[in-house]
């Protein structure tokens, strides 16, 4: 987007372009010193540019293939704040269609999910197939003979690709391939979605929160320093991961700079395989042949692992439980931090289980995921209560006037705690004692800074 092109905000005003560019520039100037101008977490002009430069250009998660298993199955989804239909068409192909009639723009799909052979606009009745083709125009013979229906199908997201079940879309037709964009992150993602055939259980949790989408994306990128304080109440209650409760000893590896994405991996050194707490009968259904020996070994030792795929998809694969009396299970929770306005987001939260596990095991996976990370999750509720406070400070005049920054210098400038691991088998910059470094979070904000340039960097 060029400088002189007016960018309209949600209230119709034009933001002061120079000031936004200066604020974005100040992130670039300070981030390598571990300082982040906090105003970017609650600023209308920044938010409006994020909608365009981040959600309008990058690959954004849309849904998991198992959410629409049958032809005609659909779910309404959003790319940034734009409405799309995530649908499996009659030929079993996955489509991501712009949810807006080509005639006057109304939503052609108004149900959150379902199964349908067609989408019919409620305004004048234009009707589309699940592939988006326009196949019905009332009064076509009398008034629309001139209309080239082949040229009036529903618009599609220009780029749609799946990475082993995780479907992403990009609004920018010039975006690099999904695999190129995930880059080094695939080495880590493979351990969850390639090694294991995962299945979404039911419908995502959705709730709206007064927190900027970047705050949880940053947190899941690798803020392992907050766990003893932020989650003390849940840990005291004996729940969550076996590593957090001290049930198992582990080393924490922070993986920064995995092509702009970040991961944290708790590794349990033991003869006994860990596999995120999945029991042997479930692990039997995994696919070691799809991993390298190095990936398999990391998976074998994995306690909790978590991460953020830029921009707004995070996950946690947690070996743990929602009550100390019940057996630990491996729970995989995908979460998307959807922008909903400056300093506001909607959380989308999916719980996944290995497809070939028993129904009883899947139920335990669900309960354990819901009891830890969801709107009622005993871990999540305390995160959000804390994050809301950041939003208030970020929106302050004081922060704007004084360029207030927040601190990302842990383990830097001579502090020895986090050690670079030279012989780690996977890609990225890897640190052991990973709870004592901010490099993962800095990776997230570097990706943000790069993505927020006026011209895409490609």
């Amino acid at each position: 987007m060029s400088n002189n092109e007016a960018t309209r905000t949600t209230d119709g005003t034009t933001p002061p372009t120079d000031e936004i560019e200066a604020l974005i520039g100040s992130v670039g100037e300070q981030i390598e010193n571990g300082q982040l101008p906090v105003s970017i977490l609650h600023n209308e002009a920044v938010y409006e540019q994020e909608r365009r430069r981040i959600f309008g250009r990058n690959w954004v998660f849309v849904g998991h293939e198992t959410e629409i298993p049958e032809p005609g199955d659909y779910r309404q989804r959003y790319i940034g704040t734009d409405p799309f239909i995530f649908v499996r068409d009659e030929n079993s192909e996955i489509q991501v269609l712009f949810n807006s009639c080509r005639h006057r723009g109304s939503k052609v799909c108004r149900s959150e999910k379902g199964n349908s052979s067609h989408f019919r606009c409620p305004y004048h009745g234009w009707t589309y197939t699940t592939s988006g083709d326009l196949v019905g125009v009332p009064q076509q013979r009398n008034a629309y003979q001139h209309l080239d229906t082949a040229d009036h199908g529903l618009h599609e997201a220009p780029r749609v690709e799946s990475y082993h079940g995780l479907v992403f879309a990009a609004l920018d037709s010039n975006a690099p391939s999904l695999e190129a964009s995930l880059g080094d992150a695939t080495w880590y993602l493979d351990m969850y979605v390639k090694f294991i055939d995962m299945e979404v259980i039911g419908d995502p949790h959705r709730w709206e929160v007064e927190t900027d989408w970047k705050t949880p994306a940053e947190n899941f990128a690798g803020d392992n320093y907050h766990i003893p304080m932020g989650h003390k109440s849940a840990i005291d209650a004996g729940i969550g991961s076996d590593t957090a409760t001290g049930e198992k000893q582990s080393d924490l590896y922070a993986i920064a700079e995995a092509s702009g994405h970040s991961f944290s991996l708790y590794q349990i050194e033991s003869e006994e395989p860990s596999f995120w707490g999945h029991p042997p009968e479930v692990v039997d259904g995994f696919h070691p042949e799809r991993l390298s020996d190095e990936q398999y070994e990391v998976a074998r030792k994995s306690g909790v692992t978590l991460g953020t795929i830029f921009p707004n998809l995070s996950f946690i694969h947690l070996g743990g439980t929602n009550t100390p009396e019940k057996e630990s299970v491996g729970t995989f929770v995908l979460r998307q931090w959807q922008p909903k306005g400056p300093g506001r987001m909607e959380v989308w939260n999916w719980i996944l289980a290995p497809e070939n596990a028993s129904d009883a095991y899947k139920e335990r996976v669900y309960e354990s995921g819901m009891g830890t990370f969801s709107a009622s999750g005993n871990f999540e509720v305390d995160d959000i209560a804390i994050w809301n406070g950041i939003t208030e400070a970020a929106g302050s005049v004081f922060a704007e006037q004084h360029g207030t920054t927040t601190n990302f210098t842990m383990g830097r400038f001579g502090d020895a705690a986090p050690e670079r691991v030279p012989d780690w088998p996977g890609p990225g910059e890897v640190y052991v004692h990973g709870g004592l470094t901010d490099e993962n979070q800095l990776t997230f904000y570097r990706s943000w800074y790069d993505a927020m340039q006026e011209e895409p960097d490609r």
Partner: protein
Amino acid sequence: MNGDTEHARRSACEEFLYHEAHLLDDRRVSEWFDLVTEDIDYRVPVRTTRERSAEDEFSDQSYHLKEDHESLRVRIERLENDFAWSENPPSRNRRFVSNVAVLGVDDAEIDVRCNLLVHRSHEDETSPDLLSAERRDTLRRTDDRLRLAARTVLLDHTVLPTNSLSIIL
């Protein structure tokens, strides 16, 4: 209990529902927990926007809460911890319970339906979170009093308009 008059039965249910709402509003969650049975089944299913013809808007797989006695105990224990930041400082909650109707009755249990409106505020907020729902409860006659044996909370929300569900509905 079949011998009770319809009016007396409904009054007993109302008395129970108002009493437990009062305990929860007052943050006396441990006392509230004494009112649930050991085999409590407490659920808040996820709701989705569906076409009118769809069978059900409520999921039978996905829940905001799906609790038994043990998992409720964990939640209550956590809420009483000073480090439970979502409720310290606590949210202020007022439960409005209305439209109480007895749906069915046998010797041991009464099925009862009511409407629930929770007025919830935090810190300096002036516009409250409003949570609206129908409750389907099973109340069981025990030696000394009625207790809650099952509760399903059918929310009027697909996207929850509150920061977290760190309260009992």
